């Protein structure tokens, strides 16, 4: 029992200092308590009301509680069976669910939550997982509702949302866990077998224990082969069914032959031959390590579609007979009137009937500037309504929305994409063929002399052509490269593309947000000759800070870049007219900022010199903001989306490497052309829709090019999947990150170059590794064919060949030694 020491001075609930002047009190258990905020006060009151106040004695000394997190919005939707379906494990009256909880900090929270929930009627089980911050809840749906329980949690200061462990943790992780078990088992068997082998090598193979040790080896190797070796047999047979010789085949043949031969020696109590049980387990163990590494970098193919589906809100507010009614999006019909509140996602595609608002459409178009919408404008499912309520008439639902079309494109691209051809895959069939021919030859040549020796020599050829090194060549190099990439801001999600990227002959870039920063900035300032440029900029920024338009942010940023103190300028009578401009009084003078039309409407004559220059800039796809001061047109600000600092360098380096480039943009042709010109010219395909982006990639691939696509928006998702290598920027949308094979963190575009170098280095290492394993075989196979190989040589040389491959892969890090500048 310990009392919070912080309670005497700070907030009784969370212990944070109480801001002087603002305080919240409550009389609890006869003592007056102070709180830092209303949240803490109400949570604490709820805890006392429930009689759970010993919570405060249970919090360990030194653990500071935090003010309660914001309760989740719209929890009623979780009462719909259709919504719950995704999360609950069992349906019917008794339901099981996992909730992800924010606000759990210590063991006392576990106690409080479990106590608090078990008091609610209908709760059968409430089990908190402190490490994962999750609750496993089982409740009777007839007695209580999920939303009631989530609300009860919110009352005592925890914010909970349903969570689907199957999807969140992924099937792949589960498969990897299975692989890990097999790996452990193989490791266990291998270590025990080593002792037995050492005993055999050191003389036991001649003495009275020979048979016993053979049988022990058999006892350990059999379960290892059946359990840990199962994936290889499954892979080999799966490959043979579709007439392909896979990497698994030589492994399976090697394992089977080695095991069968050793078993034959054991069972017949043969006194000449040797057993190779340790080789069987060694082989399984080492190759499983490679497999496990490979599995860690496998692509999660389905998650992109899932993220896209999550963008679509599950419920919509439909106006029926003048009343708001929350229904499932699935139930919304064409022609229904849907209300979209500020801050909410648009559930359907539709046309605005009433209201005015800015909508963030960045997830669809990649444009970061919100688009203003008023009556008659189209809105799209998945976009976010920023500031005003909109009444929308539905014109397409679920399967027909723009978002759904993108989802379908993504699915199509995923299903039709050709599998990645790995270097090792192209070599393996030949390798298998040569091995089998060598073994057969050995058998027939020796058979003319002695059957016994012929069998042994042929078997040892199969055993010694160790696919170990070959099996480790690719995964080990990719694992090292992926790990190093992650350290340097290149997240390789699909390791296999590292081989492909080095062969890329064509790069396709998205414009907005990829080559450019995706936000407006002032590119040129034109001022009339008789005024001070800085004064104009200061006044303009002072006025624009009251506006929410994208152009306003650019002008303010420009003013800040010049360290102008616009905040102290007094601005009166600010007013904005949507689509035209803003107006305000600064130091007694009227400042007008907006389009040419805005100035003309206010009776201001345009400065012909400025206007001519502005027209020139507009031809270069810049948008111009006209500024008038005291009734005189004095300045023009030309706004443009700025190129990323590193775009120029990347493009020129790619060009000098002889790589083709295409700029793909949904933007107007003039804008895209201007950007391409700044970068020294490249093929431009502008005004494209998401499905066109996908098609452009397809066309390039049909021309025989290996295409790498760099993008960041949802509209890039199908193209990112279609391309041989999809590269997304870390700042991009979740969907593009999920669709890509490589993600560049910290938005460094120059990382594209580093990624290309890394991939070249990786391919080189893979080639070296394959070469090394061939060298090993070139030495060992003739020895085996001469029947000169015994188990000791096999046991020593096989791990060495694997170690050499691992060591060579580790050398990839040298690439970054020079890069670390």
């Amino acid at each position, binding site marked *: 029992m310990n009392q919070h020491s912080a309670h005497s001075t700070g907030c009784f609930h969370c212990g944070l200092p109480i801001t002087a002047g603002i305080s919240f009190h409550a009389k609890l258990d006869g003592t007056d308590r102070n709180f830092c905020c209303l949240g803490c006060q109400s949570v604490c009151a709820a805890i006392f009301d429930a009689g759970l106040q010993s919570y405060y004695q*249970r919090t360990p000394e030194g653990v500071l509680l935090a003010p309660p997190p914001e309760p989740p919005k719209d929890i009623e939707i979780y009462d719909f069976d259709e919504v719950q379906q995704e999360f609950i494990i069992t349906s019917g009256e008794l339901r099981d669910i996992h909730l992800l909880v924010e606000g759990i900090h210590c*063991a006392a929270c576990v*106690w409080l939550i479990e106590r608090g929930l078990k008091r609610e009627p209908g709760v059968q089980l409430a089990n908190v*997982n*402190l*490490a994962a911050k999750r609750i496993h809840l089982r409740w009777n749906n007839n007695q209580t509702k999920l939303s009631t329980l989530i609300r009860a949690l919110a009352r005592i200061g925890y914010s909970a949302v349903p969570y689907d462990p199957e999807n969140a943790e992924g099937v792949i992780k589960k498969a990897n866990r299975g692989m890990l*078990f097999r790996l*452990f088992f193989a490791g266990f068997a291998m270590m025990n077998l080593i002792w037995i082998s050492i005993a055999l090598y050191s003389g036991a193979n001649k003495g009275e224990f020979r048979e016993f040790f053979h049988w022990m080896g058999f*006892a350990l190797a059999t379960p290892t082969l059946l359990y840990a070796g199962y994936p290889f047999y499954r892979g080999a047979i799966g490959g043979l069914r579709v007439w392909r010789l896979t990497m698994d085949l030589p492994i399976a043949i090697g394992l089977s032959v080695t095991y069968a031969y050793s078993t034959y020696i054991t069972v017949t109590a043969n006194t000449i031959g040797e057993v190779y049980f340790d080789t069987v387990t060694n082989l399984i163990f080492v190759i499983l390590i490679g497999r496990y590494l490979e599995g860690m970098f496998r692509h999660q193919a389905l998650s992109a579609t899932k993220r896209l589906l999550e963008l679509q809100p599950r419920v919509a507010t439909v106006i029926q007979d003048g009343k708001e009614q929350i229904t499932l999006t699935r139930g919304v019909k064409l022609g229904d009137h849907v209300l979209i509140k500020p801050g909410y996602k648009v559930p359907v595609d539709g046309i605005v009937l009433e209201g005015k608002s800015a909508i963030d459409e960045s997830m669809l178009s990649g444009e970061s500037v919100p688009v203003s919408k008023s009556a008659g404008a189209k809105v799209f499912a998945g976009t976010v309504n920023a500031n005003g309520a909109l009444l929308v008439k539905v014109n397409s639902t679920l399967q027909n929305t723009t978002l759904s079309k993108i989802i379908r494109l993504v699915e199509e691209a995923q299903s039709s994409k050709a599998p990645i051809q790995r270097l090792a895959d192209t070599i393996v069939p030949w390798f298998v063929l040569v091995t089998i021919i060598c073994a057969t030859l050995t058998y027939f040549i020796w058979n003319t002399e002695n059957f016994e020796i012929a069998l042994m020599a042929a078997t040892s050829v199969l055993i010694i052509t160790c696919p170990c090194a070959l099996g480790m060549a690719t995964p080990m190099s990719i694992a090292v490269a992926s790990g190093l990439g992650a350290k340097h801001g290149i997240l390789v999600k699909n390791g296999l593309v590292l081989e492909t990227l080095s062969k890329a002959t064509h790069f396709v870039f998205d414009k907005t947000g990829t080559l450019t920063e995706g936000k407006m900035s002032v590119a040129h300032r034109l001022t009339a000759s008789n005024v001070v440029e800085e004064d104009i900029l200061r006044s303009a920024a002072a006025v624009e800070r009251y506006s929410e338009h994208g152009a306003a942010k650019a002008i303010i940023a420009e003013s800040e870049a010049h360290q102008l103190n616009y905040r102290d300028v007094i601005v009166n009578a600010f007013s904005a007219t949507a689509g035209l401009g803003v107006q305000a009084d600064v130091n007694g003078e009227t400042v007008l900022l907006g389009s040419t039309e805005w100035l003309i409407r206010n009776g201001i004559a345009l400065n012909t010199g400025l206007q001519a220059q502005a027209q020139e800039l507009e031809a270069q796809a810049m948008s111009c903001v006209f500024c008038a001061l005291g009734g005189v047109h004095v300045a023009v600000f030309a706004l443009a989306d700025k190129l990323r600092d590193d775009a120029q360098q990347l493009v020129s380096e790619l060009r000098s490497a002889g790589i083709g480039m295409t700029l793909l943009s949904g933007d107007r042709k003039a804008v895209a052309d201007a950007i391409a010109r700044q970068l020294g010219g490249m093929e431009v395909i502008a005004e494209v829709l998401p499905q066109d982006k996908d098609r452009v990639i397809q066309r390039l691939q049909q021309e025989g090019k290996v295409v790498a696509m760099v993008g960041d928006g949802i509209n890039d998702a199908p193209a990112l999947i279609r391309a041989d290598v999809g590269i997304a920027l870390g700042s991009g949308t979740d969907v593009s990150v999920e669709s890509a094979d490589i993600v560049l963190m910290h938005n460094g575009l120059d990382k594209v170059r580093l990624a290309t170098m890394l991939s070249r280095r990786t391919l080189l290492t893979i080639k070296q590794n394959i070469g090394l394993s061939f060298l090993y075989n070139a030495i060992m196979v003739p020895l085996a064919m001469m029947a000169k190989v015994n188990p000791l040589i096999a046991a020593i040389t096989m791990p060495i060949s694997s170690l050499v491959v691992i060591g060579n892969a580790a050398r990839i890090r040298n690439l970054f030694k020079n890069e670390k500048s």
Partner: protein
Amino acid sequence: MNVIYTLIPGMTFLGLVFFAIMIWAVKKGQYEDMEGNASRILQDDDEDMMP
């Protein structure tokens, strides 16, 4: 030396048993929450039961 006829198989079998126990424990979720249960045992839940 004949003791190895029982000792080696015996120990190997014991190792297999431990391995099976470990996999069983992981699959049962015994390692899912290492912190919660450690502190849960220290919580006094029996106040109302005390005389």
